[in-house]
């Protein structure tokens, strides 16, 4: 593990809490700081589960394995502690919070990152929020709308990236942010993510997607393929291209071979 590694997952086994169902069956993944890794794989293979486990979802139980984030044992931390340490998940299915405006929500999230006794500067926050809404081509009126309540599918996804742009994580987990976005929106969102990466070249991205299209805009350094709770293949951007052309059938032959190691 090199010094610049931000995330290192070893032999991660996860099951549904209170049930026997095993979902992740020995995931290994190393993400160096500043890189973009894509995770692809058939429906139900465990991609979202991996993202949620990294974020600390209480519905899953880690049975074996280790996750080190930025030199710390990630699995020890509560979800909010992980967030404050710099992990952000852009959800595949964002939750609605009726009655809570985006501005209020993000202000509270920012405030909770400060040490006790420190107060968020509201003017700075306002400026940041406006700047980020601008970056993502969102109407300012969105700031006063309740979080995800009554949002269209695409608006929810864009709102996830707005939150990410405001909270500036060290590691961004993006779970199918592209699905639901129209072509123009996809470009805007990708531009937003790339801008964040320019602002902070050490920011890393783990990007879950089914389609090559997103990867045209956010170029991955590595593409992992997950099947049945395991990474069965890792390689360069060409893996995604081949998947797009051949579908997961290409893996059948790959299965026969040994899994490509990083």
């Amino acid at each position, binding site marked *: 593990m090199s010094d610049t590694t931000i995330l290192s997952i070893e032999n991660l086994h996860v099951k549904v809490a209170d049930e026997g169902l095993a979902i992740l069956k020995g995931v290994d993944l190393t993400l160096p700081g500043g890189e973009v890794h894509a995770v692809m794989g058939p429906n139900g293979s465990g991609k979202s589960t991996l993202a949620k486990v990294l*974020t*600390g*979802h*209480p*519905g899953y139980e880690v049975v074996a394995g280790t996750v080190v984030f930025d030199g710390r044992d990630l699995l020890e931390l*509560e*979800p*909010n502690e*992980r*967030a*404050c340490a710099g992990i*952000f*998940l852009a*959800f595949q299915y*964002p*939750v609605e*919070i*009726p*009655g*809570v405006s985006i501005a209020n*929500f*993000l202000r*509270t*999230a*920012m405030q*909770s*990152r400060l040490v006790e006794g420190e107060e968020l500067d509201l003017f700075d926050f306002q400026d940041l929020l406006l700047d980020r809404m601008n970056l993502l081509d969102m109407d300012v009126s969105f700031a006063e709308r*309740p979080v995800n309540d009554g949002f269209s599918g695409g608006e929810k996804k864009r709102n996830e990236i707005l*939150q990410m742009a405001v*909270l500036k994580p060290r590691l961004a987990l993006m779970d199918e942010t592209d699905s639901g976005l129209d072509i123009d929106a996809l470009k805007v969102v990708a531009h937003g993510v790339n801008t964040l990466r320019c602002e902070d070249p050490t920011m890393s991205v783990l990007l879950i997607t089914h389609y090559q299209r997103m990867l045209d805009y956010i170029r991955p350094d590595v593409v992992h393929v997950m099947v049945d709770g395991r990474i069965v293949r890792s390689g360069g951007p060409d893996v995604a291209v081949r998947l797009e052309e051949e579908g997961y059938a290409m893996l059948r032959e790959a299965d026969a071979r040994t899994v490509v190691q990083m």
Partner: protein
Amino acid sequence: MPKNEVIERLDLDRYKYDFRTEDMPVFRTEPGLSEDVVRAISRYKEEPDWMLEFRLKAYGLYMKKPMPEWGADLSQLGDVLDQIYYYVRPQDRMKHSWQDVPDNIKDTFQKLGIPEAEQKVLAGVGAQYESEMVYHSLKKEWESKGVIFDSIEDGLKKHPELFRDHFATVVPPADNKFAALNSAVWSGGSFVYIPKGVHLETPLQAYFRVNQERMGQFERTLIIADEGSRAHYIEGCTAPVYSTESFHSGVIEIVVAKDARFRYTTIQNWSRNMYNLVTQRALVRDGATMEWLDGNLGSKATMKYPSCYLVGEGAHGSILSIAYASNGQHQDTGGKVVHAAPRTTSTIVSKSISRGTGRASYRGLCKVYEGSTASRSNVECDALLINETARTDTYPYIEIGERSANVGHEATVSKIGEEQLFYLMSRGMSEDEAMAMIVRGFIEPIAKELPLEYAVELNRLIELEMEGSVG
């Protein structure tokens, strides 16, 4: 401006009278209730004969009526009622000292950032003088418009005819056991008259009427909003109110005349030994609008159903309420709308939160009399459960005697979901913060109707309540 002029303008002389009351002998009735007690109250208040007769008749009704067997558990109330003093002069009531106020209440005051003088008032150990300045200048404005805003006792003395024309016309003593009790022993409360066509921008706040029996156990308020007038009356406060008394039974009567618009906001946060049984009702005439905004946070048991009797064509009634029931509390609240004229409309929106062993019940009545053609009513009640042990129930009573009426009822119960909590925590909020945020969002449609300072305080209170609620 020369100094003495400033002082003159502030009219500090008034304080002489405020302090003079300290020299008066203690007056309170014997514990428990009897005809003699009722007579003594009336005599002490130097009331006209008709009021004494009214009280005695109400006393008879109270003795005859059985305890309600629905709503909150009142099985312990009988003992309480045998022991309490039915009348204590307010200046004699401040018996306990700051030391006696429970620590948790002091603690909440601290956390809410309530100024010391105000803390003492809320705890019942001090009178408030600062707000009198504000009150005094507002009072001049009101007087110039012919608005009457007095204690109910002064209302009876100074405006006997207006008073008698309306008193007990909206809530007659026979209405329910506690209305009868209040009618027999009432003391304290406000008398308000808004003249025809007068619009008031600044809300009338009961809070301003200091040192005037404002927190009476058996308060009685009578409000008359004359034709085409508009006003807003606010009573109570979000901060906890400590009282050594454990029973509060008020009656609020409001007459909203033709085309008038009146809003009554009340937030109750009594300490958790209190039985709070209040009858609030408005008579709403042609084209008039009545809005109740009702928050019940404290007490041990509350039974309170603000009502609108829509008796004039095109009258509108609206009832918005929030109830919060924590450990050991039962909030049995809701609203009543009675449609008794054509084209009347009403809305009830009720939100409740229960936590721990708390129980919040929605009890609502919608009655539409035959002939109330083209009337509409819509009821929405939403309950939020903080944890598994909390309880909520809904008792909607709908009686429709008019075929053309349109009545809708919608009820939802939700639990704070794991996914919602996780979403908020994944953004950095602690579990408590996340809870508080969800609860705040839940009541937002009603909280946003509150005056700003109340809304802010309510939010902070919810944060405090959610601390340690997890698990």
